[in-house]
């Protein structure tokens, strides 16, 4: 499409450190796009290169087909909402919001400023100074200050990071509403996987300066591409397979810790012989005996070692015969009682909910710990 933001083979190095490594990425016009990753993964550097605040060491950034790689920040139709908001402390809210328009030589800024302040629900705050506003209000001023310029792309650098949980949820909904209303491309950088999933149409999970996986939130969550993604976006139980895959019809089967498990061929991303079998904790069901395992389900047995009550669900840790702990989320739906530590249980899952991933040499089972495989 005409207004797509495209990064092609972009690399950014700071001395010997490579922050962004040969990154290629297309953000379609009008998308709400989230760059998700742990701190230091290069997501903010990527954003700053789009804003023009950092110059790529190599590669190209284009916006709607125009090369903007070497343009100064003030020459780009792109605006940023900074993490710390960066409101000008010596200017009133009105002047903060009007700043961009004035620089562009717009004469009568008042109507637009008024309209913008009402969009972010700060109608009567124009005369105040930034320090007289609460964190959430400052955040909205920063948003208004950027949006008033009608940028082609709005960049948001962890804009909700400084807000408390309740306000953050509220602002997430607000941001999503505004994005739908103005139809501008939003590129949102965050380390909060829940925030990325609730807000964005497309999420790119970054690790070590590269994109590990890109797709719709549900797609990435249900079928992660790498062990990193499987454990950064939510949690996964990953069992190390031994030997290769065997194919029978539409199913693949793999041996792990002496048992054979099958997975539909469509749920495999494995390319080699080193393989992880992965299942999300909420896709695991606890039953009391093998007789209760639903037909077609896979299962294994273990002992409950720990349970933590987290409101909507209870998280159990189940120790398997080969001494690995599996994480299981059991919904607190009122059906079935809680299991005490020490209880013998059978863990069952639908093979269609499992997935196969490539594993690195030497990696063992992994459960809800971030896989720092490249570190």
């Amino acid at each position, binding site marked *: 499409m005409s207004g797509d933001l495209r990064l092609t083979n972009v690399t950014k190095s700071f001395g010997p450190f490579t922050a962004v490594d040969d990154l290629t990425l297309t953000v379609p016009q009008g998308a709400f796009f989230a760059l998700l990753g742990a701190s230091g993964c290069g997501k903010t550097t990527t954003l700053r290169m789009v*804003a*023009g*605040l950092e110059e790529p060491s190599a590669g190209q950034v284009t916006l709607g087909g125009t090369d903007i790689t070497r343009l*100064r*920040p*003030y020459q780009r139709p*792109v*605006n*940023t909402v*900074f*993490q*710390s908001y*960066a*409101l*000008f*402390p*010596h200017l009133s809210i009105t002047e903060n919001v009007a*700043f*961009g328009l004035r*620089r*562009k030589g717009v004469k009568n800024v008042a109507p637009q400023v008024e309209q913008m302040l009402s969009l972010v629900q700060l109608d009567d705050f124009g005369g105040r*100074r930034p*320090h007289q506003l609460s964190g959430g209000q400052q955040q909205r001023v920063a948003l208004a*200050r*950027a949006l008033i*310029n009608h940028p082609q792309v709005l960049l948001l650098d962890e804009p909700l990071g400084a807000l408390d949980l309740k306000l953050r949820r509220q602002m997430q909904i607000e941001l999503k509403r505004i994005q739908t209303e103005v139809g501008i491309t939003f590129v949102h950088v965050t380390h909060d996987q829940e925030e990325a999933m609730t807000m964005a149409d497309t999420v790119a999970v970054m690790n070590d300066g590269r994109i590990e996986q890109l797709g719709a939130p549900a797609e990435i969550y249900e079928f992660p591409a790498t062990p990193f993604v499987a454990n950064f976006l939510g949690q996964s139980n990953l069992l190390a397979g031994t030997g290769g895959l065997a194919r029978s019809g539409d199913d693949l089967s793999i041996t792990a810790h002496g048992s054979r498990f099958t997975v539909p061929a469509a749920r495999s991303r494995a390319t080699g012989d080193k393989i992880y079998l992965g299942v999300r904790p909420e896709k695991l069901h606890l039953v009391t005996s093998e007789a209760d395992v639903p037909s077609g389900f896979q299962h294994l047995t273990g002992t409950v070692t720990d349970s933590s009550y987290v409101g909507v669900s209870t998280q159990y840790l189940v120790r398997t015969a080969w001494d690995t702990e599996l994480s299981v989320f059991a919904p607190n739906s009122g059906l079935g009682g809680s299991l005490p530590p020490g209880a013998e249980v059978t863990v069952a899952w639908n093979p269609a909910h499992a997935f196969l991933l490539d594993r690195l040499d030497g990696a063992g089972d992994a459960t809800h710990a971030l896989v720092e495989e490249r570190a």
Partner: protein
Amino acid sequence: MRRHWVLVTGLLVLLYLFLPIFVVAALSFNEPSSRLSYDFHRFTLDNWANPCGPGDMCDAVGRSIEIALLATLIATVLGTLMAFALARHRFRGRDATNLLIFMPMATPEVVMGSSLLALFVAGGVSLGFWTVVVAHVMFCVSFVVVTVKARLAGLDPRLEEAAMDLYAGEWQTFYRITLPLVAPGIVAAALLSFSLSFDDFIITNFNSGTTVTFPMYVWGAAQRGIPPQVNVIGTAMFLIAVLIVVAGEIINRRRAA
């Protein structure tokens, strides 16, 4: 009870600090009984009505103000530029400069005055008005650099990035964002420079040749009895300083409101 003690102690400290100034202010209204007496003899407004009474004194005051203004201007411009360079750019010798900038503040004035004198004499420079200006700029620059740099260090670099992001070019970013935010530091540095230059005696005395500044005049006059008009000048300077501080406070409150 404890709160009273804090209050009383605080007032005593303030009294200790301000007593000499009250004495100067009181003596500015004195008609001394003889040239060498410092006791309050009789109230008069003559000193205020005729502050330039003693010959040469107002010349000296004027010269001191002239020197202080020049030294302040040069030191503030130079020091501000240096502070920006030190705070914003990485270059070879930056750490050394940061250290050396403290040297004039740490060096005893006697040492600095005499070594400057040696330098001027060795260089064949004739002492006078301009050597005093050079000397004052030298020690004022350090204070300006330190003051402005502290202000710059507290300035969020994202504010400038935000301005650039909002279509302000480098120059616009500087005078619409950076300069207004650093201005209080620059003004403070200039005021500090002015008062340091205006009352410097030791370094000036080494390097002034036949030029007489106000502190030197007072020093000379003290040998034969200080004319009461000196107290008028002292009181006036104090009042001007108070006015500047009060005005600064009012401006600050307006900006905050």
